[in-house]
């Protein structure tokens, strides 16, 4: 049994002008596809074959860098595509209440998340994480994520933003803050809610 590149729920140009079609196509068909196939190469034929991605993450500190890097790349991008949508909107219901409880307001949450994304030096991700102590914003280097035993903030990521330069360079070049600002227009809050509740 192998890990599979998930199908996208929308076309490459669906998130324009916030994410351009060319970036979307290269990001999905090259970067994400490469992480997926390299993860399979690292796992298949070893004792780890058949383990879930979550099992791998829980003991990733004792596994090879190939599994940490490509496993993270596989999972993080799969989550990223799901929490994006051409029809953005705003958080509602229990998720909104939890955001208000943990951050004071939706705007304060956005500011904290944007700051985590903007100040991550080098390549990495910003996260909204469901923890035992409510919702927390964090960021991780490279392809690490909050499900890994190496993460500083551990929990269930319910929203993620890719701040590797490949995620925005064709459209925004050095202007990472503009990319982060654009991201708020295409967050799939229904999906984030679903991940929060489950």
């Amino acid at each position, binding site marked *: 049994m192998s890990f599979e590149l998930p199908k996208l729920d929308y076309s490459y140009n669906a998130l324009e002008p916030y994410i351009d079609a060319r970036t979307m196509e*290269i990001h999905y068909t*090259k*970067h994400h596809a*490469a992480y997926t196939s390299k993860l399979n190469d690292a796992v298949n034929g070893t004792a780890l074959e058949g383990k879930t991605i979550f099992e791998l993450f829980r003991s990733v500190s004792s596994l090879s*860098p190939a599994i940490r*890097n490509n496993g993270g790349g596989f999972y993080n991008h799969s989550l990223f595509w799901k929490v994006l949508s051409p029809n953005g909107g705003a958080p509602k219901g229990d998720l909104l209440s939890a955001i208000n409880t943990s951050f004071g307001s939706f705007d304060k949450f956005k500011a904290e998340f944007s700051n985590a994304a903007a100040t991550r*030096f*080098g*390549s*990495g991700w910003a996260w909204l994480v469901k923890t035992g102590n409510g919702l927390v914003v964090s960021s991780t*280097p*490279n*392809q690490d994520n909050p499900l890994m035993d190496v993460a500083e903030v551990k929990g269930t990521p319910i929203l993620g933003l890719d701040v*590797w*330069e*490949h995620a925005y*360079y*064709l459209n925004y*070049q*050095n202007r990472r803050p503009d990319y982060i600002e654009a991201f708020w227009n295409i967050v799939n809050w229904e999906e984030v809610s679903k991940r929060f509740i489950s």
Partner: protein
Amino acid sequence: MAFELPKLPYGLDSLAPIISKQTLEFHYGKHHQAYVNNLNTLVPGTAFENSSLEDIIKKADGGIFNNAAQVWNHTFYFFSFSPKGVKEPKGALVDAIHKQYGSFPEFKEQFATAATTLFGSGWAWLVKKQDGTLDIVKESNAGNPLRNGLTPILTCDVWEHAYYLDYQNKRPDYVKSLWDILDWEIISKRY
């Protein structure tokens, strides 16, 4: 005394098509400049107010280290190129490369492997150790071998901003192309 962005000894369009004018406009004009500006904002009022860039790199941490090292690394990187450079090492560096790697092509292969396999953002380096022998090291993000007492001879920027406009996800193509614009006259003198 403020740090300054050094002027490049070649035109921004002169490394094309290996490195396009557009890439240099952003890489040198925006990224390199921003590291200089950030450093000049961060340093005043700290213990590093009168320090050299090298001193800061050896001793600082956090934002000051990141920006200082990125200023140094980019200057070192941009000053390794020339549109019509000498294509092979010269002088003492030739012997050192032969002794360590067997041949120049074999060295190129090992250096390219380091540059293509570094995961995430960072720099691949050819360094001289204190005993004069060579080594190839990978450094993440702003990493700089001066911190480990090594002398940098050559570097390759593998942050995606260095090649994404020209090569997108194809980092190996970028690394392979650089051999055509590296100037070994300059690089050999660093040894």
